[in-house]
């Protein structure tokens, strides 16, 4: 008999693979995507399908250009995760070329120029998002009004929006964060009650439900041990603390309430699906806590004092830069290196 000569350990945890991790992340986006579809119509869903197909093409092309085997890496689903996360962040009913540019930038410039899976210093989906946000601000701010099922664009509208020559802006409306940004002179409570867009159960209409759905998906991933609690809790806690400090009883120049910040825009999606990207974040648990907290602070600062209504992408990319530095200062204490007291 020929004996296999392999190194220890000989056994491996069952069902533990990159595909499994990616599959579970994709599964966890389902509640959020369903709620988005409920409020905004099938736009996001179509974006995801179209974006994923493009992403697979870009990935295969990039692997081929790099002279790599392009069959097995395609099966790890990582590029579909990137495309899905980007498409969730894009406005529903975005034109095809916007998605194509975004996915192309994410996959090619966000991932493969650095060496592919595992080597990207920045979150690829956020790289694509920021390039689009800076290059095409009009298209990127055309969010649909969250009207709820029965009053949303149909599947035909979605296809027209995706492939029509002119941009589809019949249904676009300001998001709660836009209103908050443009608010001048109105007390926060007044803003929340006077505008229909603000009248949600917790925060803005529709958006609070979307955030709750992503929170649910994120908690499931946490339970599946796909990531640890450190980065999400760090971000949500820091954002809450900032909101608590900045909330001045709701004056017109104040920062908005804690609930408003936690359940508006991309907060939960970012906390559980974006900053938990292990490749581009800090490595130790302590480091991830710091990383998340600093993203939370940046999100607050940019939302309240910056030029953009939401800030997740910028916050994440800026902290991606800082991750290696955080790692330098957050190395855990190795067994036997703690100071021990010597009995005299």
């Amino acid at each position, binding site marked *: *008999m*020929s*004996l*296999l*000569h*392999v*190194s*220890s*350990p*000989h*056994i*491996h*945890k069952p069902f*533990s*693979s*990159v595909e*499994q*991790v990616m599959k579970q992340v994709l599964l966890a986006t389902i509640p959020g995507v369903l709620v988005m579809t409920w409020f905004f119509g099938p736009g996001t869903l179509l974006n995801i399908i179209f974006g994923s197909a493009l992403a697979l093409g870009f990935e295969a092309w990039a692997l081929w250009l790099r002279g790599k085997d392009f069959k*097995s890496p395609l099966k*790890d689903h*990582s590029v579909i995760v990137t495309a899905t996360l980007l498409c969730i962040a894009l406005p529903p009913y975005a034109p095809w070329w916007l998605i194509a540019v975004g996915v192309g930038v994410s996959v090619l410039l966000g991932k493969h120029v650095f060496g*592919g*899976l*595992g*080597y990207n210093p920045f979150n690829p989906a956020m790289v694509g998002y920021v390039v689009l946000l800076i290059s095409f601000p009009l298209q990127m701010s055309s969010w649909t009004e969250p009207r709820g099922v029965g009053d949303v664009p149909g599947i035909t509208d979605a296809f027209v929006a995706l492939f029509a020559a002119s941009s589809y802006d019949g249904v676009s409306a300001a998001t709660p964060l836009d209103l908050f940004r443009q608010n001048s002179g109105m007390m926060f409570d007044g803003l929340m009650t006077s505008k229909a867009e603000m009248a949600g159960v917790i925060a803005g209409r529709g958006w609070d439900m979307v955030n709750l759905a992503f929170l649910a998906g994120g908690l499931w991933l946490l339970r599946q*041990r*796909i*990531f*640890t609690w450190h980065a999400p809790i760090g971000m949500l806690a820091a954002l809450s603390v900032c909101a608590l400090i900045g909330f001045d009883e709701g004056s017109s120049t104040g920062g908005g309430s804690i609930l408003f910040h936690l359940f508006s825009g991309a907060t939960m999606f970012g906390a559980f699906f974006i900053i938990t990207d*292990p*490749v581009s*974040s800090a*490595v*130790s*648990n302590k480091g*991830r806590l710091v990383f998340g907290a600093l993203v939370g602070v940046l999100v607050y600062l940019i939302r309240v004092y910056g030029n953009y209504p939401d800030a997740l992408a910028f916050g994440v990319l800026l902290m991606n830069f800082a991750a290696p530095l955080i*790692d330098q200062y957050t*190395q*855990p*204490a*190795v*067994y*036997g*290196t*703690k100071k*021990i007291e010597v009995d005299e």
Partner: protein
Amino acid sequence: MRQIFDIHGGIHPPERKELSDPGFVMDCPPPSKLVLPVTQHIGAPARPIVEVGDTVLGGQMIAEAQGPVSVPVHSPSSGTVTAIASRAVPHASGMTDTCIEITLDGRCEWITCEGVADWRAESKAVLLDRVRLAGVAGLGGAGFPTAIKLASDRAIGIHTLVINGTECEPYITADDTVMQCFAREVVEGAEILAHMVGAETILLAVEDNKHEAAEAMKDASAHLASAEVVTFPTKYPSGGEKQLIELLLNVQVPSGGIPADIGVLCQNPGTAMAVRAALIDGKPLTDRITTLTGMALGKPGNRRVMLGTPIGELLALGDFNSETSDRVIHGGPMMGFAVTDLDMPVVKITNCVLAPTRSEIPPPQPQQACIRCGLCAEVCPASLLPQQLYWFARAKDQEQLERHNLMDCIECGACAYVCPSHIPLVQYYRSAKGSMREASKEKLRSDNSRVRFEARQERLERETAARDAKRAARKAAAEARLEAGDDPVQAAIERAKAKKAQQEGEQ
């Protein structure tokens, strides 16, 4: 109840211990030949003291210890030395080493063994010498010479002896068997060990999946006030020496140190039994309890195996079906290494021979890219950052590897077990550790030669300076005399004249 402390990380792989019943020791007929490596321990190899053609008896020393960190090798039975040659030996690198091959005559004749009458009355030196001459090395897996461990004389002294019956690796039940079937001997061995090092407390540590063993230990140690059986939740690698100490005593062995630094001594139950046999029966270590397990075997179980038994013959005893298997593992599935040659013998550290079927332990999956998920850091019992170490090992960045404490890695394999990308992390660490050891040896060598060179330079300078000083002093003295009108040449001439005049006067 003693408080159990938490250790970082760890995993819960399927235990598979039910395959090999630890309740009894199966028969093991003597093999046709024995292959005894001269190195079955950590340290200098033993030197053969027999020649090809010699007849030997069981218990007879066939290779003697060389230097302090070394142990002798004894023949497990009677027969003829048929070869002293290089053979495949159990080692992670699949290397060969000098082995003494003995063809057995089947008569099983032994030398007369004589133990000490009362070990409590003997001096520590005498007891240590006996342990050493009996060839006892740690049976738990590392094979460190037991006498060296017992002789360590730290100022702090040893206060606690831990008998490590954790056996946290899946499949293995050898220590379990030893504790169940030889409970009295293990406890007596522990008593002797505690006496030798002066430990006041004996902790018999058993994982809670070995209920019978814990009970047996309790019964056997009931009469000892200083002994306590401690059970704790099953988790790999609780049985790592450093992990077990933290789990029991809530103290950590300092990085780069040994348990004796904090007053603790750890010994395997089998080693305790071997020490007892060496002192009370005067018997050298020539056999051990080994688990023979895996789904490719028809008759798995624990056997008392003569050291030197070829693994192939042992597998045949267990009805090995080679059709269904493509690997044989020496040790457990987490830290054991693949057997490359079935003629490889059972040695002092062989606690398990595992023959899994292909479906039981499938071939390794292809390695994928690291996605830095951090699962490895979650499970690392040493609180290292395995993925960072992996990147630094690939980059051969020794400075960062040192900064991230690679040398504190115990190679338990928990990181590789959970890695979703199937990266053979431990392999990277082993190779990086090897290069680091080389580099530090190299550095020591160059440091030494630099010190020597500098010392020589200094000495040369000193000598030159001394010579110059002497010369200057002589010159100065001469000049001084000259100035005082004291011409040495003139003086010499006058002395010679005076001498001549004196001689003439005498005549």
